[in-house]
């Protein structure tokens, strides 16, 4: 007979067992050391479905400690149902503090957005990635894409961008725009909108990209150059929100959500509402409309002997 005891199960801190956490942290270090390179990792099953943020959880739960303040957003929103569920899970498994305030968080997990607020050296942002392979659209076999990365053979990618321009008059890649990291690996920045892509470059925070189902981790370390793929004469463009203001805050210069209150009435609100009160985001517009405004790397004071 079954005794009730049999099903009483206590979970390890952060759900994942220590050996596996250690393995994930080692793979993360490797990913930091080789910016943009996809590191295969064990990717244990989580009590959250594949494709719903398991990769993000692996990274977050292997990094998190008792002093961390955790924030999680989905599509930019703290209140999105999946974000709520994952927040509850992380909180239950670690007892960590959670926050909605981007600035107060030490560890941020996100799906499909990078917060507009500039993150600092003291923050790590973990992206949930559905498909880590930027070349998948041009080469379906993993075996071959790994080879292409190894040889930096990105010809097919360039051709596909060129073809898009010829067919449609623009590079039609929407979210997850391919970028080159530190002048070497081509990476997909998870499907964040193009709006967020300039915010990855030379940022003070560590970006961790984690794809649970595909079992790959990659990183953009702090102060690393991230360039969207573009041609000399056909430039990378962010989403068009010209002349659009937020119906709630009146602000602009932020990624907007399109809201339909009825079949005809449409309005826009800022996707990341926490940013509306803070500094304007770094953005780049079409054809160099406004240059990337990125934080300066702090100059180290010369060390003088007394």
């Amino acid at each position, binding site marked *: 007979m079954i005794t009730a005891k049999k099903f009483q199960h206590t979970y390890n801190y952060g759900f994942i067992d220590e050996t596996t956490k250690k393995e994930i942290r080692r793979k993360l270090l490797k990913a930091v050391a080789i910016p943009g390179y996809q590191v295969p990792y064990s990717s*244990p099953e*989580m009590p959250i479905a*594949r494709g719903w943020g398991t990769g993000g959880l692996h990274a977050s739960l292997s990094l998190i400690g008792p002093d961390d303040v955790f924030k999680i957003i989905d599509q930019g929103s703290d209140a999105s149902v999946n974000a709520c*569920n994952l927040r*509850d899970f992380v909180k239950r498994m670690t007892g960590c503090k959670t926050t909605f305030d981007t600035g107060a968080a030490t560890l941020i997990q996100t799906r499909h957005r990078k917060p507009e607020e500039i993150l600092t050296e003291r923050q790590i942002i973990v992206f949930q990635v559905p498909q880590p392979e930027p070349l998948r659209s041009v080469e379906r076999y993993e075996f071959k894409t790994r080879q292409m990365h190894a040889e930096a053979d990105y010809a097919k990618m360039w051709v596909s961008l060129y073809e898009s321009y010829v067919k449609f008059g623009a590079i039609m890649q*929407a979210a*997850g725009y391919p970028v080159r990291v530190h002048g070497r690996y081509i990476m997909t920045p998870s499907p964040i909108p193009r709006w967020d892509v300039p915010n990855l470059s030379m940022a003070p925070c560590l970006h961790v990209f984690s794809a649970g189902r595909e079992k790959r981790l990659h990183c953009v370390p702090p102060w690393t150059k991230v360039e969207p793929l573009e041609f000399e004469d056909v430039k990378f463009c962010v989403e068009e929100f010209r*002349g659009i203001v937020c119906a709630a805050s009146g602000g602009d210069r932020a990624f907007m*959500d399109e*809201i339909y209150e009825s079949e005809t009435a449409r309005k826009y609100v800022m996707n990341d509402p926490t940013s509306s009160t803070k500094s304007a985001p770094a953005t780049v517009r079409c054809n160099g409309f406004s240059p990337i405004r990125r934080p300066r790397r702090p100059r180290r004071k010369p060390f003088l002997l007394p």
Partner: protein
Amino acid sequence: MGYVATKGGEDAIANANQLVEFYRVKERTTPIEIAQIQAQFRLLIDKIMGEGSLYAPEHAALVLKQNEGDVFESAFMLRAYRATLQRRYYSETLATREMFVRRRISSAFREIPGGQILGPTRDYSQRLLDGELAEETLGSVEAFVAAFEGELDSSSLRAVPTIGKVIDLLTAEGLLREANPDENRRVVDVTREAIKFPAPRSAALQMLARAETGGLMALAYSAQRGFGSVHATVGELRMGEVPVRVRDARGRVRVIGRVRVTEAEMISKIKVQKKDPVPYLSLGYGLCFGQNETKAICMGILDRAMRSGGDAPCQSQEFVLYHTEGIESYGFTNHLKLPHYVTFQSSLSNLRQAVERKEKKRGNLGFGMAAAAKKETSA
């Protein structure tokens, strides 16, 4: 604002959880006991244990109850539970020759040493509804079991010997060959390291053993219908219990229990080599938890197909292994239910700009959707 109502997310989840629990019990029928599920849904439990990759019949019964019988969800939950258990040992190689055989057939020969044992199977039953089951009572069950056991003459039951394999006959005659003798024989554990391609056969077989039965069947069927041309014969299909042994800290091998497994050895021709024009036979191997013959057979076909090389879907390791992984495909196909409005907005922006470009070209700027949208918002 649907499923991202500000601050509403947590309440919505709590309510949904409560509601679905209500749906589970709202008819107020007698709760099913775990022991009942375990005993009466034997094949379902086997399937869940196989796909959940954990041999734990009671836990499988529990998750089945918890999920109102959803097989995908149950296998997934079992897998997630499995991931919380530390792996302490790797077992010694299972010896299926030692199996306590409950069922064993070969379609390659009429008679085989040890005999064909049909065992518990519905293969040759007529698939007609049994109305009497609707009226089944504990009394009628007991009467049947007593009558069945009464017919058995326990004095004539001899100890079941271990039964040799059918393929031994072919091996002895030299007709059975390795499909590709120089393939990677490294043993890897896909739960500890991500699969890389080309994957060693051990990884491929492990993934097949954890794969979703329906997915395996679809691809194995495609191989039989001509997308990959594996014309396999069931060399031997056996089901029963095998002992599991591990090596303890002192290096002694100990039996830790028995698991019920189904094993399929599928025979098919190998590609003829130029220097050796004999179409020798080779094995495709399938082994899975419990009694799940469809799965074992399809594993056998796909194991063979993936090693044969060719352009058909079933001949590509990446295609077969990634897409039959039930837990992952279940999760990912269902993730489409998550909000995607940011990425969708990004595509919409592209689309509207494309429309605008087209209108500009035509010279009728000011009538299109994009222009209308702008007018509306700036107003």
